């Protein structure tokens, strides 16, 4: 009889835990898709963070998640371009100014070419062009960063763009 006590306790404990488990499961049942999708990207945490911060992600398919990421590329490019333009107005060393001008061109290309073609490709069902667009956004950011002789005033932005672009490309890849 004393033998059954631990077993009984264990059983009761399991019921207790499992009933709690049912309470813990999140209501958003697209969380699973987001997790699965983000697991196949180079940066799971950042991927989850970005997607979950957008309310559209709760009922998006993979194409929808990719479109959310492209939107993030777009908004980051806009913010960075504004910062670049502010910096250009200030007094700069010639090489710094040259690097900033080059960066402006790079971020403009993201906005003018990469984002529109990625959106169109995802919506129209030929996602490979969105993969190209995302990959190119990363190249533009990295090239911008490498253009600075001294310290880059845009490191945070360039690294962020690179990471977001890499995640986007990896999500699009899942559609191919």
């Amino acid at each position: 009889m004393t033998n059954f006590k631990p077993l009984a306790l264990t059983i009761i404990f399991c019921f207790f835990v499992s009933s709690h488990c049912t309470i813990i499961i999140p209501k958003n049942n697209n969380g699973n898709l987001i997790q699965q999708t983000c697991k196949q990207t180079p940066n799971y945490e950042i991927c989850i963070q970005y997607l979950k911060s957008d309310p559209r992600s709760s009922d998006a398919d993979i194409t929808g998640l990719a479109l959310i990421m492209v939107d993030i590329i777009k908004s980051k490019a806009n913010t960075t371009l504004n910062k670049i333009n502010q910096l250009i107005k200030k007094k700069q060393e010639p090489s710094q100014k040259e690097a900033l001008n080059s960066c402006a061109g790079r971020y403009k290309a993201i906005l003018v070419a990469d984002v529109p073609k990625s959106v169109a490709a995802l919506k129209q069902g030929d996602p490979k062009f969105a993969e190209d667009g995302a990959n190119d956004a990363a190249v533009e950011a990295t090239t911008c960063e490498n253009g600075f002789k001294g310290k880059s005033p845009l490191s945070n932005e360039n690294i962020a763009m690179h990471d977001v672009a890499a995640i986007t490309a990896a999500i699009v890849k899942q559609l191919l």
Partner: protein
Amino acid sequence: MDRTNNSNHDVPFSYVSLPIGPHEDEAPVESRGKWKARPVVFCGLLVLVSLVAFNGYKGSNGNITTLTSNEDLKQKTIPSHKWKPVSRGVSAGVSEKSNRLFTKSNNIGGMLFPWNNTMLAWQRTAFHFQPEENWMNDPNGPLYYKGWYHFFYQYNPNGAFWGDIVWGHAVSRDLIHWIHLPLAMVADEWYDQNGVWTGSATILPNGDIIMLYTGATDALVQVQNLAYPADLSDPLLIDWIKYPKNPVLVPPPEIEVYDFRDPTTAWLTSQGKWRISIGSKMNKTGIALVYDTKDFKTFERIEGILHAVPKTGMWECVDFFPVSTKLDIGLDTSARGDDVKYVMKVSLDDDRHDYYALGTYDENGVDFVPDDTNKDVGTGLRYDYGVFYASKTFYDQSKERRVLWSWIGESDSEDADVAKGWASLMGIPRTIVFDKKTGSNLLQWPVEEVERLRMKRCKFHNEKVMPGSVVLLNIGSASQLDIEAEFNIDKKDIEKIKQTNEEYNCETSGGAANRGALGPFGLLVLADEGLSEYTPIYFYVVKGSNGNLKTSFCSDQSRSSLATDVDKSIFGSTVPVLEGEKLSLRILVDHSIVESFAQGGRTCVTSRVYPTTAIYENAQLFLFNNATEATVTASLNVWHMNSAFINDKQVKLKS
């Protein structure tokens, strides 16, 4: 400009150089004035010329030493640091699928390479098809009609990147000189509102022309539509009519609405019906659907599929055609018979490569069976091991040949494309025949009409190239060239080499910098004299464990440019070399595109190259041999190529 990252860099003018004015270490743009002082190129003469060129190396006093015997032929050894990449671009080690993505790599001290207009303007080609501006991708509906070659293509009239796709149109008498015509089709119907996408032409026995193409509808469904010329008596086929009851095909229920595109040219079945195929996928298995029709307006879905290969993903731009196993001519798409094999080709969405397989076709069973199941569609041979996608053939009835078109995309950044205002080229059209000697692959070769662009020829005969050396070929500026070359490795060198289990893979080899006993050797194209930028096209031979030689053919972009935002992969593959064959290659250099063919077109590699320095008069051509043991003898013909003046013609048509 510092050309190397090595502090004890060799004096650049220790190379065999052209007999020109004093060489100075300055930026190439400024040195243009100096190049004008160069004496006339001794082109067209034979051995004597090449001897003079190779021997005429310069001391610092400006004298040219002319030597007359072969023993005096001084070849320069190339310091090893010249082979290592100066700046990391997109390196070969990164898989091709993510080859545009690279981590925040070594900041090379703020070396900024903004693309200036001079560099960008040089990139436009002289004799490859491209529109005047903006974006182009897949070739569409190529055909020959009433004396004219017609070419249509995916085009964005609004920008240098994909989007707003419509059908561009151009015509030519010879596949080389093109005249741009008005757009053939635009997105003006609900069934192609979101894209007038890729399609193929079928010419009926009565002369009717049928165009089937994919439309992305207003509801974003991929459908197939019928179009035909408004006026068949117009040889230029300017105007096109879309069938009022389009679409003629919608995705079948088991296929996703966005996995249904690129209908093929039709072929006649023995029942007298027309049969087409459309690529798709089920999960990750690429498949080719089959439809029959009598009138191209109503279609019957044929049970089964033409072929399927697991794990290959979406099949785009399916092409299916017969080749003669006996004759070196092309066959009509409907041809059949005993001496006929079939080619099934697909473009894989997953990796942006075009694959093909040779096999047999059972019409009744609707079955394509590859000759070699280890080299199936999508897992085996590629038309081209470089940048080459969405290709499509057509039967040219006027010359009885099958001609292959392919889209050659850019390998640079979007920023540069937007700045230069255009993106993408077409490869030079190629004829396709069955390789009777190997029996297991196709041969591709630039159409003969391209040879009409050849101007003066420089001939080099039996140039011996010692291990570890580089030889400047005195041909003058080298941005537009047609090169045919043969290489021979000294038999003694081959015999004394040990056998090895080495498996050479161009893509992961590290390129021409990595020396083997019997390779690499070949040519450096788009190279500046100081070799700060160059693109090796080379053979690499391995003596295998049974004494047999295995040959690879590669194009190495790792040092093609000092810019950091261009692709620097190494492309290539093995190439069959049969008993008694010399190693032979052909290279078409046309500014930012290099197309290379080995062994008569058994292995082909197309590359995009974007030098910052090796442009205009600074672009040169070298022979090189970076093998450790093999002495190589090379004979070549190098032709300067004329422009095809493609974008100089404006056709004004009455509206």
